């Protein structure tokens, strides 16, 4: 091999650069943020569906809602959990309890690197802080 020493040195340096981020952040995983409930949400104790489902499936529920409301004019949702009927609206219904968007929605969304465009149109509640 011609110039074997140079090539191998180059490879080692290249590999080291490539793997640097992994070694640098090893063991320093960012902790999942805690979402914060408002007093009203705490008092209600349960959301419209089970908490586990809401954590993993709220986006699917909202996606179904938006189609059902706009396209089928089906504006009311009956909870499988409590049997209560709710007005299908992120802006009016969800945000009434979860009026702390920055601490309830944004924290996890930022952590997960998702950027939902709900708020381009739907109006987020005013937060005092």
């Amino acid at each position, binding site marked *: 091999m011609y110039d074997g020493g140079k090539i191998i040195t180059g490879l080692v340096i290249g590999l080291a650069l490539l793997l640097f981020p992994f070694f640098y952040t090893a063991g320093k995983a960012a902790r999942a943020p805690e979402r914060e409930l408002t007093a009203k949400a705490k008092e209600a104790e349960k959301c419209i569906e089970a908490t586990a489902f809401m954590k993993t499936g709220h986006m699917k529920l909202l996606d179904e809602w*938006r*189609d059902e409301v*706009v*396209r*089928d*004019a089906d*504006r009311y949702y009956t909870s499988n959990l409590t049997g209560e009927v709710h007005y299908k*609206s992120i*802006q*009016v219904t969800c945000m009434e309890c979860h009026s702390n968007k920055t601490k309830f929605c944004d924290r996890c969304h930022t952590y997960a690197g998702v950027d939902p*465009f709900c708020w*381009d*149109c*739907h*109006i987020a*509640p005013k937060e005092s802080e």
Partner: protein
Amino acid sequence: MGVNRREFLKIAGLSTLVGLGGKTAFELLAPGELEAREAPLGEAQKWGMVVDMHKMDEPLMDKCIEACHRFHNVPNIGTPKEEVKWLWKETYHHSFPGRENEYLTEEVEEMPFLLLCNHCTNPPCVRVCPTKATFKREDGIVIMDMHRCIGCRFCMAACPYGSRSFNWGDPRKAPEALNPGFPWNPDYPTRSMGVVEKCNFCAERLAKGQYPACVEAAAEEVEGALVFGDLADPESEPRAVLREHYTIRRKPELGTGPNVFYVI
């Protein structure tokens, strides 16, 4: 082995029977019943409006426009080229081209007309929309699904009434001086940059059994300036007005079937 003729006829006969037992049989035996179960959104088959120009004046029109635009968070952009409008005023000549009779009465000649989406029976905007963002509901309302609009503006080219506006910018960045306190209605969304918007006959209010915002605003001043109801129901308020008065519609010759009528 193929199917011989006798077997084929047997299968064909059986499939016909099965077909008859489905939706078709329902319709043959109990016409209308299936439709009634599948059909209506809201309580009308064909929402429509009558604008009584004898009872309208310009301040009242402004009041209706204000009520509509405040309710739906429609900002005043300030420039006619980029304006967004759901309900607006226009002269007779611009509203009813082809009806430009000479020697018109002063009232007709001078007065602006209150214009809005005609919620056509045969809406051209719906036909051209490539994503089906604009569609016609079963109660006759031509409505937009903003989640689907890609801002291609085919609908704006198709609509012969200029009922559609494009958001050239973010409505929330509309000039603050012209829109103090925007967005005004915290219960209704704004739109985003790059979508088309238009009057939706207040579908969200109708769902709660309320009249459209403009109709409600007009009724505070004059009884019957804007008459809203089901055009398919002969007993409805707009049908009563249509029976008693001569009315005109905007460009009916285009075959769009506009559902907003003007008493002049």
